[in-house]
C-alpha cells in the first residue's frame, strides 16, 4: 500500500485572491484602495456607451464630421472631448449600409474601444462569442436576434492588435430630422458592436 498523500491545501477563492493582491500592494505603500476607487468611478460614470452614441448621432447629422470620423476616428472623437488610452493608437469606424453589416469581436482576448462604446458586456468575453462569430457570423447573429436578409453582406472585424473599432449603425429612416441629443438616445452599445440594428 502506498502512503496516503498528505491533505492538500485548497485553492483560495477569487475574493480571497483579490484581497491577497490588494493587501500585498498596500503593504508596499502603493495605495491600491485609491486606485480601485478611481477605476470604479471611471467604469461606472465615464466609460459608457453614451459616448459612442454622441459620436454616432453627430455623424448622422453632420456630413463633414462623418467624413472626418471615417478618415480618422481618434481625432474625430477628440473633437467631442472623448479620449482613448495611449496604446489605442487608431480608431476605425465601420459604416453599416442597408446591405452591409459590420460586427466586431476579439477572438484572442476581449479588446474593445471601451472608453467610447463602453466596457464589453459579459457575452462578448465569453468563449461562445469569441469562438463562433468569425466562422458562423450569420448563424450567431440570428441566434442573438438579428436575422439578416440574405442580401446583407457580413464583415467581421477581429481586434487582434491595438487598433480599435466601432460600428456606425444605419440611421433609422423614421428619425431623419431629429435633433442630435434625441438621436443619441436611440443608439445602443450592441448596435455599435454590430450585433443589433437600430
Amino acid at each position, binding site marked *: 500500500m502506498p502512503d496516503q498523500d498528505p491533505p492538500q*491545501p485548497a485553492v*483560495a477563492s477569487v475574493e480571497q485572491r*483579490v484581497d491577497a*493582491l490588494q493587501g500585498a500592494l498596500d503593504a508596499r505603500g502603493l495605495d*491600491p484602495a485609491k486606485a480601485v476607487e478611481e477605476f470604479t468611478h471611471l467604469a461606472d460614470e465615464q466609460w459608457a456607451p453614451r459616448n459612442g452614441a454622441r459620436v454616432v448621432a453627430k455623424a448622422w447629422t453632420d456630413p463633414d464630421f462623418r467624413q472626418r470620423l471615417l478618415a480618422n476616428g481618434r481625432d474625430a472623437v477628440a473633437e467631442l472631448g472623448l479620449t482613448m488610452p495611449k496604446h489605442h493608437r487608431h480608431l476605425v469606424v465601420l459604416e453599416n449600409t442597408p446591405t452591409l453589416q459590420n460586427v466586431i469581436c476579439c*477572438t484572442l482576448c476581449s479588446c474593445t474601444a471601451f472608453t467610447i462604446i463602453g466596457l464589453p458586456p459579459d*457575452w462578448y468575453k465569453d*468563449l461562445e462569442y469569441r469562438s463562433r462569430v468569425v466562422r458562423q457570423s450569420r448563424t450567431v447573429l440570428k441566434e442573438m436576434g438579428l436575422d439578416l436578409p440574405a442580401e446583407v453582406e457580413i464583415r467581421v472585424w477581429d481586434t487582434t492588435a491595438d*487598433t480599435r473599432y466601432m460600428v456606425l449603425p444605419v440611421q433609422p429612416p423614421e428619425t431623419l430630422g431629429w435633433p442630435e441629443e434625441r438621436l443619441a438616445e436611440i443608439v445602443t452599445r450592441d448596435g455599435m458592436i454590430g450585433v443589433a440594428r437600430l
Partner: protein
Amino acid sequence: MDGMHDLGGKQGFGTVRYTLNATAFHAPWEKRANALHSFAVKLGIYNMDEYRHAIERMEPRHYLSASYYERTLTSLATLCVEKGLIPREELEQRAHGIFPLATPSAPGRTNVATRERFQQGDRVRVRLDYVPGHVRMPGYIRGKTGVVVSESPAYPFPDAHAHSVEAVDEPTYDVRFRTEELWPNSADPALVHVGVFQSYLERVE
C-alpha cells in the same frame, strides 16, 4: 503560442448567452481585479502584451474554467510574482490557500528581418510561423491568403514587447479574408478582417 486562448473558429461551443443590456461586471471583486490590473499597468509593472501573454500561459484547463476576471487576476498575480514584486508565498499566505498562477514563458522574438511594406489591394499570405512565445496571429489565418485593405500606425511588436526583447514598432495591416477560404465548406459566407502585424505577412506574387 498555440494556446487555449486562440478560440477563433474552434467548434463545439454553444449558443451565445446573450441578454439585452448585459453588464460588464457581476460581482464587486471583478471590478477590483480589473482596477488592480489597470493600476499595475499605470505603475509600469507590466505592459499590455505581457498581460495578455500571462493570460495565454494559464494552464489550459484553468483558462477554460476561469471567468474573464479570474483570468485578469491570474495574469496580474503571475506578473507581480515573476517581476519580483510579490513572492508567491506571500500571496498564498494572504489568500489562505493556493493561488494558481500561469505557466512559465517561452522566449520571445524580434521583428522578422524580411518584412516589407504593403499597399492597399496587395495580396498577402500569413507566414507559416510557429511562435513559442506571445503572438497576435490567430491560428485560423496561419498560411491563409487575403487582401490588404489599409495600414495602421506603428505599434510595439507584441512578440517582442511581451518578452522585453528589443524590436522596432511596426504597423498592422487590415487584411480581408473570406470565410470560405479560412474554413472551406465549413463556415457561413462572410468577410473577416484581421489586424495583422507586418512581420506575420509575406507577399503573394
